């Protein structure tokens, strides 16, 4: 060991000893260690956001949505088969394609049931990022979504299948724009922000943004809480019917999932929507107020289950596609959402992370990786579009391959065939809510478990005759 290293170790040792001594001897209220319980009590995130609010006096938009894990996906497991039903032989292909809006004049067919979520050019992402997302989607045979924006020509060119949001800003709501889409999603809300109004200040709006959105110089971009012209249920029904008639492509409704879900979906059915998109409370965003991200909405897992049960109850399953989104980051979560009844899912945060991939090194350690992709980022020109598209394409491919392996072990030949019957829950309340068998007891004992524990034929318990 060199002299310098010895000296350094000595210094570190002295400092460490002194720090520990001080922490153990100082009054707790004057002790640096108090930061640890305070951090644990308040949480580092809340502590930082308290400071940010205190510094600015305004809400602090947090990127990428809530950090809370509302949906207990880990409490659901798939049930492989071995003998009573056989697994799918490995030489058999698993069908991964989905048709969205099968009753529309021109349904949207995608090769894989995972699409790129609505993340707008300008409001959220840079042009390079949008093009990369579109290219990756095209490579994988799936669709990408405009988000609440105008029609970005480069995105349209790069995306073989483009779902456009008829939005509360009004930027895509003219016939010459929406007639160039492969599906129209009427955006009335999103998981991360509910139906709240939003505003992008003019100072953050560049020339190309203004051009795509049709804004004047110095004009803010405003997303209203209501869609212009839709103030009654009848207005909405008229809008949906008009868009369907004009374009022939699937027309759907996107809402933030809430406890009013079934009432909202009934109106979507009345209007003849071809698909509905439910965005759970875990939904991401470019920047949303923490209260809207953490304290508003309904978790994706319950939203999908409730929406699927509602559509089934109305006899609309198969006719009206159910798209799920909000916090789905692993292929397991995506497939579980489909097993609960979603026909396809959107991914946003995971898609952006995958797209950036190993390019994070260009931003770290002095800038956050989001600086490479968000419209206002300082490093958007350093995002390699080809590399980004390839990264996301590989990610999508890997996710679907993992899903195919689950399908094979369940004995299924199509991802669409995977259902709640293939799931088991590890929580009694969740099992009841989602109408899934509870894994604690055999299928034939499910009702007994909830009705009378003593009647369960569990090892070490005495079986008693049921009394009538």
């Amino acid at each position: 060991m060199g002299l310098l290293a010895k000296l350094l170790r000595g210094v570190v040792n002295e400092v460490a000893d002194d720090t520990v001594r001080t922490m153990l001897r100082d009054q707790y209220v004057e002790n640096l260690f108090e930061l640890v319980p305070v951090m644990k009590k308040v949480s580092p995130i809340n502590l930082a956001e308290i400071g940010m609010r205190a510094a600015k006096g305004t809400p602090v938009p947090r990127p990428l949505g809530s950090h809370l894990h509302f949906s207990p996906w880990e409490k659901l497991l798939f049930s492989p088969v071995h003998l009573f039903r056989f697994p799918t032989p490995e030489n058999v292909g698993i069908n991964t394609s989905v048709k969205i809006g099968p009753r529309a004049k021109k349904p949207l067919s995608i090769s894989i049931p995972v699409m790129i979520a609505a993340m707008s050019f300008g409001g959220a992402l840079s042009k390079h990022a949008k093009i990369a997302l579109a290219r990756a989607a095209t490579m994988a045979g799936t669709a990408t979504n405009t988000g609440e924006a105008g029609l970005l020509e480069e995105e349209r060119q790069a995306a073989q299948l483009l779902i456009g949001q008829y939005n509360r800003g009004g930027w895509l709501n003219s016939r010459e724009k929406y007639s160039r889409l492969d599906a129209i999603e009427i955006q009335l809300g999103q998981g991360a922000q509910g139906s709240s109004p939003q505003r992008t200040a003019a100072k953050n709006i560049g020339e190309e943004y203004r051009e795509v959105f049709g804004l004047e110089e110095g004009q803010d971009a405003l997303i209203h809480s209501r869609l212009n012209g839709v103030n009654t249920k009848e207005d909405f029904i008229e809008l949906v019917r008009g868009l369907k008639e004009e374009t022939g492509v699937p027309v759907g409704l996107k809402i933030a999932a809430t406890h009013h879900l079934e009432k909202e979906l009934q109106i979507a059915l009345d209007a003849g929507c071809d698909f509905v998109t439910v965005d759970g409370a875990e939904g991401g965003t470019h920047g949303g107020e923490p209260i809207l991200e953490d304290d508003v909405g309904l978790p994706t897992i319950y939203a999908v289950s409730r929406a699927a049960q509602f559509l089934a109850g109305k006899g609309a399953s198969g006719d009206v596609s159910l798209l799920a989104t909000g916090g789905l980051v692993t292929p397991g979560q995506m497939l579980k959402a489909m097993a609960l009844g979603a026909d396809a899912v959107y991914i946003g945060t995971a898609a952006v992370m995958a797209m950036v991939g190993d390019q994070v090194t260009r931003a770290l350690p002095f800038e956050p990786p989001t600086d490479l992709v968000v419209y206002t980022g300082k490093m958007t020109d350093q995002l390699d579009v080809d590399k980004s598209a390839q990264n996301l394409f590989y990610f999508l491919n890997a996710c679907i391959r993992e899903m195919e392996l689950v399908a094979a072990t369940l004995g299924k030949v199509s991802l669409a065939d995977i259902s709640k019957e293939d799931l088991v829950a590890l929580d009694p309340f969740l099992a009841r809510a989602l109408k899934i068998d509870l894994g604690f007891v055999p299928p034939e004992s499910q009702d007994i478990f909830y009705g009378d524990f003593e009647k369960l034929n569990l090892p070490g318990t005495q079986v008693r005759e049921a009394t009538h």
Partner: protein
Amino acid sequence: MEHLSNISDTLAAFHSDLNRIQTVAGTLAQVERQHYNDLTKYDDERLTRIAVTQQSSSRQLGEIKQLCIAMAQKIEEIQSMAKK
């Protein structure tokens, strides 16, 4: 009547062609899947990248197969309605 007969013949031709496309798409999907299996044996990064593209192509061919099946079924429905 001649007009209806032409439509009937055209539908039959479409049905036949769709079955052919479906068979070709299915076969090609299987070939692409086999290519994926073959190329990933070597544990070579470049070959794996090609394999991944083949795997995705296989799925897209699978989608075409499904579309053909659905269209052929629709034609069968139209044909049976026309007979009535």
